[in-house]
């Protein structure tokens, strides 16, 4: 009877530890990645081509407007500074003639480049095959149809959070070091160690400004937020250490 009570047949507490171990592995290693699904940016935008190739500055696309609000993503109007489409209607007409219907405009992207209308291919400025493909996708799906690109924001914050880039533009690495701010779990140690003139990497992905293919956006399957969306405790920690107000209304207007 005593043996049965202690589950001697199954090795005592062994099943407990096996279950414990399996679930720990599942919970730490297997399950967490399943919370996220990888989504590609709508256009394979190459920072490398634009920054290194065309020598554009960050603030060519990411800048403060006159009213202090921040233009995080470029609009078609800005892209048109280089990727101008003077007569979109005639290019669209040529595409429609090729694909047979207004509803199938994007089908033109399935054709080889040399079968595409000349009016479209003339607009392409790249020569590298991958970049040509990306540029054509931008032109056909967005610029020609007058639709803005629905860029995915890696640091997406919900509508109930008011974040002002203007208010944070002076949070320099020097200022953080001076106040001995402990941002463990908030900011990557490598970013803090490296420092630099721009503080963008305190919140945004390190190295994104020079990549050729944008990293996938990891979307939480339940909340819909980005994997790297900063959580409220992270904002609060920095606020507290920098001596800033942590009242609700500061961020939730």
């Amino acid at each position, binding site marked *: 009877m005593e043996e049965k009570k202690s*589950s001697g*047949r*199954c090795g005592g507490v062994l099943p*407990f530890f096996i279950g414990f*171990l399996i*679930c*720990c592995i599942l919970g730490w290693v297997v399950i967490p990645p399943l919370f996220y699904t990888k989504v590609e940016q709508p256009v394979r935008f190459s920072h490398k081509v634009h920054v290194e190739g065309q020598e554009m500055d960050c603030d060519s696309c990411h800048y403060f407007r006159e*009213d202090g609000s921040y233009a*995080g993503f470029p609009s078609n109007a800005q892209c048109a500074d280089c990727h101008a489409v003077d007569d979109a209607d005639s290019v669209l007409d040529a595409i429609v003639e090729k694909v047979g219907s207004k509803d199938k405009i994007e089908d033109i992207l399935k054709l080889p480049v040399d079968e595409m209308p000349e009016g479209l291919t003339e607009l392409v400025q790249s020569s590298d095959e991958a970049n040509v493909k990306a540029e054509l996708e931008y032109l056909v799906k967005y610029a020609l149809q007058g639709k803005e690109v629905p860029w995915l924001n890696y640091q997406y914050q919900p509508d109930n959070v008011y974040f002002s880039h203007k208010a944070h533009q002076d949070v320099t690495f020097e200022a953080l070091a001076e106040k001995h701010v402990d941002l463990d779990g908030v900011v990557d140690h490598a970013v803090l160690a490296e420092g630099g003139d721009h503080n963008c990497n305190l919140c945004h992905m390190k190295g994104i400004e020079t990549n050729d293919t944008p990293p996938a956006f990891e979307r939480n399957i339940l909340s*819909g937020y980005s994997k790297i969306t900063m959580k409220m405790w992270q904002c609060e920690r920095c606020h507290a250490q920098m001596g800033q107000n942590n009242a609700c209304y500061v961020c939730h207007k």
Partner: protein
Amino acid sequence: MGFDRRTFIQLSVGGTVGILFTPVLWKALDDVSIWTQNWPWIPRLKYGALEDQPAVSKLCDSGCAVKVRKVAGSAFGTEGNEDSPLSKGGICPICANAVQVMRNPNRVKGPMKKVGEAFEPITWEDAKSMVADKLAAAKGKVAFISGDQTGTANEVFSGFLAGIGSEDYLQMPCDMQAASRAYNGVMGGTGQVAYDLENSDFVLLAGADAMESWGPTVANQKAFAATHPTGEKPTAIYMLASPVQTRTASVVDAWIPVPEEGMATFLLGVAYHLIRAGKYAGAADFGSFRSMIMDAYAPGKVEAAIGVKGADTAALAKQLLAASDPIVVPGGTSVATATAAFAVNMLLGSLRKVSEFPKVIQSAMSTSERMSKDLLTWVNKGAAPAVAMVYEANPAYSLPDDFKAGFVVSFATEWDETAAKADLVLPNAFTFERFDDMQNPYGIGKQTYSVGVPVCRPTLDVMASTDFILDVAASMGINLGFDSFAEVIAAKAEAVGADFDEASGGQYEGSYSSARASVLGASVLSRAAAPVRGNGAVVLAPYSQLIVGSQNVATTPNAPCVISTNVLKGGTLVAMMCSATAKKIGVSDESKIKLSGGNGEAAALVKINEGVLPGAVAVPLGLGHTVGDEFSKGVGDNVYKILTVRSEAATGATVWTGSTVNVAKM
């Protein structure tokens, strides 16, 4: 080692404990809590550049010069345009909700034709063919009803009407029409009477609810505010004569209770004292005017007719005489009241006018010409055109009497009573989606012209009615000289001398001039000024509030929360009356009553308000729509339908002043 029930339980317990040592459960709980903040039906904000684009909003009768607020190219609101001489940064309650109206699901989504009792979609090309065929078959028996008081669109429509051989261009009844018929008709003047409130030191509002619903309310409020600085002595005196203490009455310096139907008598009673004080007007009939006043408008007679004491009219006349720049502003659709007000202004030497701007379509009617025809007289004469077209108006709702036509074309932007009754509904582009303009809105003190260009891309299958008519005209071989309304507007702006460009519109600001009328209208006033009342138990004193709506625009989406319970309570309109009136008809506060008169009935709740003349019942116009959205349909009853229409003696104007109703308890 076997795997039995006990092992399973131990494994499960271990697993449960193990999972608690991982972030999975806490992460899932956190994500679920965030997920609940983002239900799919919660609208998402749009982020992008903020932009304010100047535009004109033609929703209210006067029109407002506004700025449409946009984020990332999407309009989300309106605000006053501080560069406009009209609004100076202010905005009326209707135009403040313009974007919400533009996004209203009640908008007509595309051209529709009536088949049986239902509507079916039709293409614009088919609609043009159908209209052209109907007009050709009508052989000139065509009418056009316009609710647009200020737009050059009227030139396109009236020029087109002339091209198909009809003169039945009819304006919806309005204060501007009464003033035009008084000044240009009865008194032999030319132009549009102007009221320089900004520079007047004494303003007598004779029935004109200037801060609430009369004329350019925003400009009126600005002028009032400038002369009544907070904490300082006013630099001008404003008085309101009306049967109800409206919101205007609550802010002006004095309120004089005068029945609406007795307003002309009241003004001529004031003229009596002015003439007695030696005032003279250089008009051909001054002698007969003077005799008429002295005979029929002595203080005792005025008091007997309308209950206003002679001492009060004498004191008022004294103040008018003492002022350096006084002005009398008439309100309502009575031509007699407008004539009497202008006669008083002539005696005071303060009658001013603004000239009409030149026409760009030569076959079109001038403003005074299109104001000269009386719509209800035309209706009541039994007019039955083969085709009637309705633009920026809702006559099926706001005319006390119904109009009839063989084929009705409605250019409505939203579904309303007229659109529902029409055979063809051709949705006009919204005011922010089309070219439009405002010439000299009635009530302003100087010439003004504002041009609006499209600032919002249409999201529905709509078309500017002006462009539609220009296309139909071209197909019928009628040459109006322009292919598009954008060209008409550009030509108009050039003719006016406005600073105009196609990206941001433009404006022009001129001045006024002294008005010269050949007569004071003595022969007309001697027959038209006496108060006329119906035979019902109480006199109706209808009033308007822009927050409730206008005769063309129903209650806007954001408005219901600020409509007072003195206007609407629990979906029932409120009839305000003084305690003496309530006692006389045997009702009390909160009594539910039925008002019967004109062509209908209205249910109401009684509200005792000593700011209503004895014997009168104050009721709000603009409620009781039978077609529309959740904010207007079935909310209250339509007071227009209990008004009694009569023809004003001598002027022939159709008026409903002195309408009476019978009251029954419910």
